[in-house]
């Protein structure tokens, strides 16, 4: 599908060649240097927590942004790197929101329930998507699109587990085990660490053979298999990683919203927003979702305040159209193209 000769990233060979180098290259023998982004991320997070922690409004925006960084990075692993454009990621976020709410309301600690739910969600979700692996492009998109719709009706129906259409509320009294705090700082720190992990996973994928395999599968899976890339295994890895991170994001998000109901948990908006953020930042780029979320989520809340009454959504929609028209490679793609052009001029 993609056979453009323009290099898509600054320090990578053109995308026409990855099929020929899917194996283990010299870079893979070196330990991946995640140190710099890890330290930078942790320092940034600590500063953030100190700076905005006391101001719950700002903290709210930062928490939202960090959540969307996680969710969009998770989607990017599948939709960006591997080219499987899921339109149903709200399913994994929503089911995890329900599961962890159920667990906490039945006496579990959030900290104990979350890892179990993430593992279970990953296994179940991967099994669910597996039959869809042979669907390509828009067919995969539409199949995944239907999943949250089904989940919505089932959640409304299964009143005993989900509280039906009324949804379930989170406990209201502060408790560390149940993840109910008055201060915003614990929320900031936990979602910050989760977001950091999700970005580091992307960086890791980006630099290892698995990333090149994913891209090879995305570009042309027949050619990739011919070149020795295990396409199905690569898809499985991408799916599982993507679902695990989405599930983690969901387990956190419900502690912050303190409420889950079928329409908000499985909203089309959620499924589309993760796609939007990843594309805006740069599809299949490790920092793409991060950039997309940092720009769009605060802008979204500013627009909502500055232009109330539908105007902000109108602007939001128009902005989206304009961005895609003028920045089809996303912000990072646009930036790297600009860099390439500048460098050529200098040379």
């Amino acid at each position, binding site marked *: *599908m*993609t056979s453009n000769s323009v290099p898509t990233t600054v320090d990578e060979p053109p995308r026409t060649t990855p099929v020929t180098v899917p194996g283990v290259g010299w870079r893979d023998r070196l330990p991946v240097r995640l140190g710099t982004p890890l330290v930078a991320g942790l320092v940034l997070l600590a500063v953030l927590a100190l700076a905005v922690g006391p101001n719950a409004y700002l903290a709210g925006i930062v928490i939202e942004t960090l959540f969307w960084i996680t969710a969009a990075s998770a989607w990017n692993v599948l*939709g960006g790197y591997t080219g499987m*454009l899921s339109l149903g990621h709200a399913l994994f976020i929503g089911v995890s929101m329900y599961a962890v709410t159920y667990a906490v309301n039945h006496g579990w600690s959030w900290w104990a329930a979350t890892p179990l739910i993430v593992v279970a969600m990953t296994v179940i979700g991967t099994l669910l998507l597996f*039959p*869809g692996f*042979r*669907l*390509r*492009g*828009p*067919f*995969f*998109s*539409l*199949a995944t*699109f*239907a999943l949250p*719709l*089904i989940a919505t*009706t*089932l959640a*409304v*129906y299964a009143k005993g587990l989900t509280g039906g259409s009324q949804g379930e509320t989170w406990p209201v009294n502060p408790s560390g085990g149940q993840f109910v705090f008055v201060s915003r700082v614990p929320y900031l720190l936990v979602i910050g660490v989760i977001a950091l992990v999700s970005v580091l996973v992307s960086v890791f994928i980006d630099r290892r053979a698995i990333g090149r395999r994913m891209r090879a599968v995305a570009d042309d899976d027949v050619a990739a298999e011919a070149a020795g890339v295990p396409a199905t295994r690569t898809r499985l890895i991408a799916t599982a990683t993507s679902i695990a991170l989405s599930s983690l994001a969901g387990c956190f998000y419900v502690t912050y919203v303190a409420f889950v109901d079928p329409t908000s948990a499985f909203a089309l908006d959620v499924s*589309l927003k993760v*796609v*939007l953020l990843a*594309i805006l930042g740069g*599809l299949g780029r490790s920092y793409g979702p991060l950039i997309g979320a940092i720009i769009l989520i605060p802008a979204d809340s500013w627009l909502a305040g500055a232009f109330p*009454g*539908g*105007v902000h*959504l*109108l602007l*939001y*929609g*128009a*902005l*989206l*159209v304009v961005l*895609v*028209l003028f920045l*089809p490679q996303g912000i990072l793609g646009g930036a790297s193209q600009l860099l390439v052009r500048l460098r050529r001029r200098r040379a």
Partner: protein
Amino acid sequence: MTLLQLVVSGVLLGGLYALIAMGLTLIFGVMRLINFAQGEFITLGMYAAYWFYISLGGNPYLSMVLVVPAALLGGWILERTLFRRMGSAPPAMQMLVTFGLSLALQNAMLLAFGGDYRSASSSFAKRSLHLGGIDVGVGQLVAFAASMAIGVGLIIALRHTRTGRALRAVQENRYAIQLVGVNVERLFAIAFAIGICLAAVAGVLIAPNYFISPTVGGGLVFTGFVVVVLGGLGSLGGAIVGGMIIGIVESLSGFYLPGGLKDSFSLAVFIVVLLLRPAGLFGRRGAEEVGFK
């Protein structure tokens, strides 16, 4: 008798779904574009019918004389200004544009018309017929008949006109047809204009039966997507048959199953078809595996 009534109701509903799905599937088949904004064009059609009914005092159905040319022109212009510019952008980007368009249109309508529920319920459409123990609403019957006529007309046009054959050829292989020297861009604009027009016509046809508000079209398009995949992406005949199946399944499951499960049942049918026969009932076999290159 109950069963017969349920099937008849389902078929009538299916006609509506078919009409909505035909617009989606035509745009998808030719342009490979999943148009999330289709529902907003249905809503615009409904508002046009309402305006015609209230301001001009006309039968809402007659607004068709204005809606059809306006929608064709609007669709043509949109394709020229928005989607043509995107050229070879990945499908995800194009999808995103339609999503942005949907959001912008929906909220523009909210600003322009307010969120009130309006009704263009003409006394003609309110009547119901009693035919041999089966009850049928005139409004639904009109929508059904129009939908079938449009569907059959389109299928014939695609088979027997030059442009129609070119549209079908571009669905088969858009690169090959370019080599033969056909102007693909013109075909895209035609397909998009007709697709938008179908949505607006659907809006006019259902305006007498439903409340009109800025968000009403979006809900109908969900079902439209299900029908499109069921029938086979890109297949008009598939859209009609798929619409009937979903209509009848909804009608029967609404009666025999606990009410809350009505929606999940038709979605389950959708998933099963997708897994057993991913190209849909009438789609090009194998298309799902290459994703229409």
